[in-house]
């Protein structure tokens, strides 16, 4: 198996005077789930469309399983879930999925199983015009599963989904990845992708400002870990003073420390004995990292 299902190198896209993408490089390996984050208009959807060969890049190279974007080989290897999935109102879910199966050369016998997989069996023979947003999104996900893609490009796959459906959708994404598909997920739902992806790429104004695992991004950003301590009523002031923290209210003390100094702080908290009744450690969240990296000036 090759180690790069999707390789993007130095891709740029100029639209008139606007640099929509500048020198973006990103590799997604088989079985890897990568989150693509960035503000509205950062260029996430454009990058996906360039990978699909729908939009021509102004510069740079892309290989989808070694093939150039838009070639038959690349299209066979890729599955796509567009940002706003729209199907033809007059068709039924089963008909739409059957068309996609025929186009990708997959036997149409898989259609029923896929509809079942995304929970659309009961609605399969209803017109798409009657589908809710979430149902259309599920059908979109069903067509992603057609033909066991090597690369899946999912543009905001959970937008408009209820919490239970989001959970199911990520279960499907996990299955895809477990079967060896390289998955690139553009999203604004930070808490979701934090738990569900191996790697985070952050775009800002068409540039890639971060591309690493959560832990590495965290370490590089040097954002503090927060420790929240609950003390006894009488001892709160003394605890705050001893640890160098800030007293928030009657019994709570907040403490910020670098990830590397965490263990040392915990030892000192333990040494205060009964004065401390409880404590909580929260490492920096993806939200903090996102804010950090997307406010940073690109080098």
């Amino acid at each position, binding site marked *: 198996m090759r180690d790069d299902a999707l390789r993007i190198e130095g891709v740029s896209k100029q639209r008139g005077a606007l640099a929509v993408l500048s020198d973006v490089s990103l590799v997604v390996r088989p079985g890897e789930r990568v989150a693509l984050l960035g503000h509205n208009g950062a260029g996430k959807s454009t990058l996906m469309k360039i990978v699909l060969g*729908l939009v021509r890049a102004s510069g740079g190279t892309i290989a989808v399983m070694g093939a150039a974007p838009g070639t038959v080989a690349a299209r066979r290897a*890729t599955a796509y879930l567009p940002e*706003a999935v729209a199907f*033809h109102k007059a068709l039924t879910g089963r008909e739409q999925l059957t068309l996609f199966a025929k186009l990708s050369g997959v036997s149409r016998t898989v259609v029923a199983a896929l509809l079942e997989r995304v929970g659309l069996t009961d609605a399969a023979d209803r017109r798409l015009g009657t589908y809710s947003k979430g149902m259309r999104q599920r059908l979109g996900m069903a067509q992603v599963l057609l033909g066991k893609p090597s690369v899946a490009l999912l543009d905001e796959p959970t937008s408009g989904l209820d919490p239970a459906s989001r959970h199911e959708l990520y279960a499907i994404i996990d299955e895809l990845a477990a079967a060896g598909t390289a998955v690139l997920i553009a999203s604004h739902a930070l808490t979701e992708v934090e738990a569900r992806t191996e790697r985070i790429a952050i775009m800002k104004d068409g540039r890639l400002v971060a591309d690493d695992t959560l832990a590495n991004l965290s370490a590089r950003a040097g954002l503090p870990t927060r420790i929240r301590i609950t003390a006894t009523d009488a001892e709160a002031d003394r605890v705050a003073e001893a640890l160098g923290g800030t007293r928030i209210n009657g019994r709570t003390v907040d403490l910020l420390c670098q990830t590397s100094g965490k263990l040392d702080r915990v030892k000192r908290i333990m040494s205060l004995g009964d004065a401390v009744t409880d404590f909580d450690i929260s490492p920096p969240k993806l939200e903090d990292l996102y804010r950090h990296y997307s406010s940073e000036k690109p080098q």
Partner: protein
Amino acid sequence: MIGRILAVAGTEFRIALRNRWVLMATLIMVLFALALTLAGSAPTGALGVDMLTIAVASMTTLSVYLSPLLALMISFDSIAGEAERGGLALILSYPVSRAEILLGKFTAHLAALAIAMVIGFGAAGLVTALLGGAGQASLIALLRLVLTSILLGAVFLALGYALSAMSGSSTAAAGLSAGAWLVFVVLFDLGLLGAIVLDGGGVFTQHVFPWLMTANPADALRLWNIGAADSVAVASGLSGATSALPAWAAPASLLLWLPLGFILARLSFGRVEP
């Protein structure tokens, strides 16, 4: 390749059926063809031709207006509309070429048009035959009218895709198509008429005008049907205009427009970024 074209065609035909497009187009064709046939049945004796011949002459004019109109109505939204709704990006992420998508849509839309034409003109032919006036020659004229009308429809389907791909939105595509219909079916002829009047029977009228008229596919349909049957020409009072041209001119025009329309459609579709 054939498999993918047929897959697209099957889906598009189903959509045309469910939108009641096939039903509406057929009804329009039947109503107009019957109305013209029955209204035009009076002067039979005077010209010495049978009733179906008269009907074919008036239905030829009907086809000049209706075939392009129906074809543009079914094709104008096919690319602009899908691009707007976002469906085009998804289908193009599949291993299907733009030419295959065009051919698939074309096959379905042409089938829908053909159904409307065959039933519409066929109903009129049947009614006329039952009323007592249909010879072998006039039956052949009717068959020719049906086939050439479908061919004219095919040309305007291709032009409709081209216009649809050129416009950024459904609304713009509707506007462009309406404009194209006006130009081909109304304004072009008016312009030629004006030129003839100004020319006063000179070189233009005798040598340029017939060729210019044939170059317009809608007029080519008229000339083809009228030129091919003397009796129809007599019935339509247009025998003069056709005699100046070789017999192959009008068929050649229509047959050339079809690939031309397709090339135009494929080229402008290629420039669409979904």
